[in-house]
């Protein structure tokens, strides 16, 4: 490669990198990560995709880049472990297999590997811990009661099999903390301290819990009831991010900032003027209209909002019943036009469109629209500074 080519490449990457810092959006991150892949910088592409997914966990473009980069490094290991699971099965092999599936983002396959292990080795705590971790991650992200209940069940089984499993006690404490059951949280943190008394962060957290005067949702005793109440209300009594073990992997759904409604309205109008777009509606969590647009050829404003609400409700219910998590996007293709309904950061956004627009493009436009108009806490602070 000539010096001129190297310089061009460096400039290109610097421009894209500057864009993800100044105007972070799924498409900006996606373009940057894809360009890194094209230049053969696989590790950097993976890092960029992971960083982007922390803010935009539902971006399919970033998920594909991450999968591509990870597959290259993990395919050999995966093949070997699959063979070992057939020829020389052991709890360690199944647990490693489940861990690799998780790395690749195939949670269902990870759960299946854990289940196979649990069936073969019922007294081994490993598979239940994997199941508990995955279900807890899903619950903190989607708030689906079933995930929370399964997480509690699996983690409690781990503590029954091995009362000294610190990780299981920490995860149970985190689960009860998010559910607002402070006394159960405190109980498990004390178990952690009895095993590892030097855990300073846990000591401090338990001390802060000790001074708490009241407990939220104290009248609800059963965890299942708490989980169902959370699913109905759409919010946790306490934020998992306040908990000491909470990592920064974006499992609480990415940074949620304040929405700039005025600028959102202006952007919706601009998007509505695009070729192929007939109706747009942006609804808040309560179903109230935040912004909308109609070109007059499609359904009326009220009709379209009803259609979006009904479609989102049916699709979300189906996703939950199928144990595939909460709805991200529904696409209805009909000769009268296509309807895309997106659930992102507590908003329900519907777009009625026709050719030349395509579903994938609409999905990207909607994600960018939300990213542009919601200021994450960190960037808000930076802007003030």
């Amino acid at each position, binding site marked *: 490669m000539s010096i001129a080519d190297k310089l061009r490449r460096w400039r290109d990457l610097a421009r894209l990198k500057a864009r993800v810092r100044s105007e972070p959006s799924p498409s900006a991150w996606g373009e940057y990560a894809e360009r890194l892949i094209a230049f053969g910088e696989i590790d950097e592409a993976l890092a960029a995709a992971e960083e982007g997914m922390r803010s935009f966990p539902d971006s399919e473009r970033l998920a594909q880049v991450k999968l591509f980069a990870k597959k290259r490094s993990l395919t050999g290991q995966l093949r070997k472990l699959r063979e070992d699971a057939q020829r020389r099965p052991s709890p360690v092999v199944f647990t490693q297999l489940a861990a690799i599936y998780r790395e690749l983002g195939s949670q269902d396959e990870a759960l299946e590997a854990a289940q196979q292990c649990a069936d073969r080795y019922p007294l081994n705590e490993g598979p239940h811990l994997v199941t508990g971790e995955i279900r807890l991650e899903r619950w903190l992200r989607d708030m689906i009661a079933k995930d929370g209940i399964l997480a509690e069940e699996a983690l409690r089984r781990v503590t029954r099999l091995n009362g000294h499993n610190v990780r299981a006690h920490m995860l149970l404490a985190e689960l009860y903390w998010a559910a607002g059951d402070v006394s159960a949280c405190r109980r498990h943190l004390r178990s952690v301290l009895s095993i590892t008394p030097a855990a300073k962060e846990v000591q401090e957290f338990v001390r802060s819990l000790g001074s708490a005067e009241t407990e939220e949702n104290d009248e609800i005793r059963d965890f299942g009831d708490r989980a169902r109440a959370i699913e109905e209300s759409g919010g946790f009594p306490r934020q998992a991010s306040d908990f000491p073990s909470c990592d920064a992997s974006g499992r609480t759904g990415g940074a949620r900032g304040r929405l700039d409604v005025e600028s959102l309205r202006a952007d919706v109008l601009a998007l509505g003027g695009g070729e192929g777009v007939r109706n747009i509606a942006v609804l808040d969590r309560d179903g109230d209209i935040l912004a909308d647009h109609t070109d007059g050829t499609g359904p009326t404003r009220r009709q379209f909002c009803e*259609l979006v609400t009904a479609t989102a409700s049916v699709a979300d219910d189906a996703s939950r019943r*199928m144990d595939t998590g909460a709805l991200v*996007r529904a696409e209805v293709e009909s000769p009268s036009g296509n309807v895309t309904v997106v659930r992102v950061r507590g908003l329900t956004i519907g777009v009625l469109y026709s050719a030349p627009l395509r579903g994938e493009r609409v999905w990207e436009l909607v994600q960018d629209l939300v990213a542009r108009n919601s200021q994450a806490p960190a960037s808000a602070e930076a802007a003030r500074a």
Partner: protein
Amino acid sequence: MRSILKRLNDVVGVKGSLVVTRDGIVIAAHLSRSLQEDVVAAMAATVIQSTRRNLEKHGMRHFARITLVASHGKMVFADAGPAFLVVVMDRNVELGPVGIEVESAAMRIRNQGTISV
């Protein structure tokens, strides 16, 4: 019909597929162990009927395909003439290439003619 579904399930990331009438009666199914036939059929019937009703209510014509993307999986419901083809997939599946396979399977089911139940 099972051979069409079996071929579709060979596509990487497809966890199962079934052909179902709009009332939820299963005509053929090929699902992985993790999926229960009656649960998928009942869910499919609800989605198909509710979506049709919603579209009709707002003066729109019947749908040709519905794609649901959830945080841990994807589902496609494709019109296959007298019935619907339902495909359950992994979250990581790219919808473009798999969509072509789904369309082709739906077309083959449609070409098989009338389905009697």
